């Protein structure tokens, strides 16, 4: 197990480097630099600005300089927001996106798990049919449809919440529900499928035969294995909740990372793009790592298989 965790952690470093390097070269192959759009600047000034930021050097030199700074933990200055460091801006924006993502993840887990477990407990009859209808619908109702509809209903018609902005504590409710719906529907489906499969296994029959109560069989025996698909989905889900916030932040005018990432991509603000991508990549890799380790803890076979070679 310890070997598995070490191996799994060691794997994250090359993955991170591949993502970061791919994006580094991708943004630089885009025609136009960060300062080209400011027309009032003369050619000499432009050259001097580019030289100041090291943008006139050959690409490979820029790349190694970037890696060296990265190792020191420096992300460099922003090109579009003079006087600000990328790190400072990210800290402020990421805090907002993290709150939103955490609230949405909590909603998705609670709603999705209870719907999935209930659907698996009563697979036949009305409740099962209703839950199954909603679990497909939830996957088909994208955030950019649901968000505006919720605003239309709750803010414009009923006036319960602010339509947009990020000022009062209630402002987190609509965006986090919007963000969570898709994931709660998916989690419900995975939980239901996993539990239904597990119910048919012989060990469940054995547990009943031993005279254990149905509640104990369900909670201790079935759920532990039945929720495996949900746990392995949590890594990608956490990643999706962070990147999915692009749309939700645009709809609800939330001053978070997602909205900011797109505007800096459109502006060719190299250091800012890199900062955002690294932050996203770090989150995604981290959550995948955690969900893999939890899976291995539940099911020792996984760890054995990977460390066998």
């Amino acid at each position, binding site marked *: 197990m310890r070997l598995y965790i070490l191996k799994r952690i060691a794997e994250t470093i090359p993955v991170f480097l591949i993502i970061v390097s791919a994006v580094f070269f*991708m943004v630089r192959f885009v025609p136009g630099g960060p300062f080209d759009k400011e027309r009032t600047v003369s050619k000499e000034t432009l050259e001097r600005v580019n030289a100041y930021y090291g943008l006139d050097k050959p690409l490979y030199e820029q790349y190694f300089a970037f890696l060296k700074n990265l190792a020191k933990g420096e992300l460099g200055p922003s090109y579009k927001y003079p006087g600000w460091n990328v790190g400072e801006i990210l800290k402020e924006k990421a805090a907002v996106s993290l709150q939103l993502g955490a609230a949405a993840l909590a909603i998705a887990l609670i709603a999705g798990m209870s719907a999935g477990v209930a659907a698996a407990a009563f697979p036949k009859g009305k409740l099962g049919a209703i839950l199954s209808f909603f679990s497909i619908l939830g996957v088909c109702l*994208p955030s950019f449809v649901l968000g505006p509809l919720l605003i239309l209903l709750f803010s414009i018609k009923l006036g319960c919440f602010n339509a947009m902005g990020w000022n009062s504590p209630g402002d987190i409710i609509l965006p986090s529900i919007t963000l969570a719906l898709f994931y709660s529907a998916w989690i419900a489906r995975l939980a239901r499928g996993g539990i239904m499969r597990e119910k048919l296994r012989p060990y469940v029959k054995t547990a009943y035969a031993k005279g254990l109560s149905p509640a104990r069989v369900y909670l201790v025996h079935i759920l532990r294995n039945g929720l495996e698909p949900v746990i392995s989905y949590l890594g990608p889900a956490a990643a999706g909740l962070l990147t999915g916030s692009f*749309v939700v932040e645009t709809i609800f005018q939330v001053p978070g990372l997602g909205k900011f990432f797109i505007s800096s991509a459109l502006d060719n603000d190299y250091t800012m793009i890199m900062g955002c991508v690294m932050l996203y990549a770090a989150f995604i890799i981290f959550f995948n790592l955690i969900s893999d380790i939890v899976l291995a803890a539940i099911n020792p076979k996984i760890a054995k298989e990977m460390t066998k070679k």
Partner: protein
Amino acid sequence: MSQEISEIANPSALGGAWRKLRADPFAFACLIFISAMAALCFLAPIAAPYSYDAQDLALSASPPSTSHWLGTDQLGRDILSRILYGGRISFAVGIMATLVAIAIGACYGMISGMAGGKTDSAMMRIVDILYSMPFTIFVILLMVAFGRSLWLIFVAIGAVEWLTMARITRAMTLDVKSRQFVDASISLGQSKFGIMRLHILPNVMESVLVCATLTMPSVMLLEAFLSFLGLGVQAPLPSWGSLVKDGAEYMEDAPWLLIFPSLFFVSALYALNKIGETLSGGED
């Protein structure tokens, strides 16, 4: 000889899918619904009452009426026509990008499964690692970088969605490979490529078909997501994502601009998902 064997081992993929859909009336209704909708959208130049960019500024944003069944937008353009033209883009992206995903994923999965051993585990490890990549970010950067060409959307989305296809095809390949009729074929001197073409391919077809029906809605979702962010197809050409986005801007005064495109989009996705779920044997 091997031709005959493969035919015995290959119950038609399409026939099996058809029987499953006929068995479930609701899923069959979904199939008819989505086919009709796709046909209407592709025939938009004939079927739509107006052109997608025909403006009638005197009307501006008017609610549904007898001349404009679903109302008009702020430039007086007919919403029904714009939805049909938008659907053309959405379905085209859905089909093309799914084909790209099948082409990459099925080939990759079959090769990996056929190769077996170290090559196989290395190839699948790559898929595992790619699963953890922030692809939405790559697609966004690609669209920002190279403009909003429709072909780029096909390829970029297809290149993201092939991973699940590769996993499923590989699992099926391993399964088919261990069957006796494959051993028989090998003993008759069939080459590896021949085995793949005659035995593996026909037998993985059904799983690929199921996976494709589930890939299509997620591709259409991704396209709409890009359009919503302003990174998809360009105005004045509508797509379902951009229609929803425009509708959201005017929803306070003209809610029909938001509601009708959303209705079309969500019901199309629902039908596709329901079909895919029925084909894959339901949730159980």
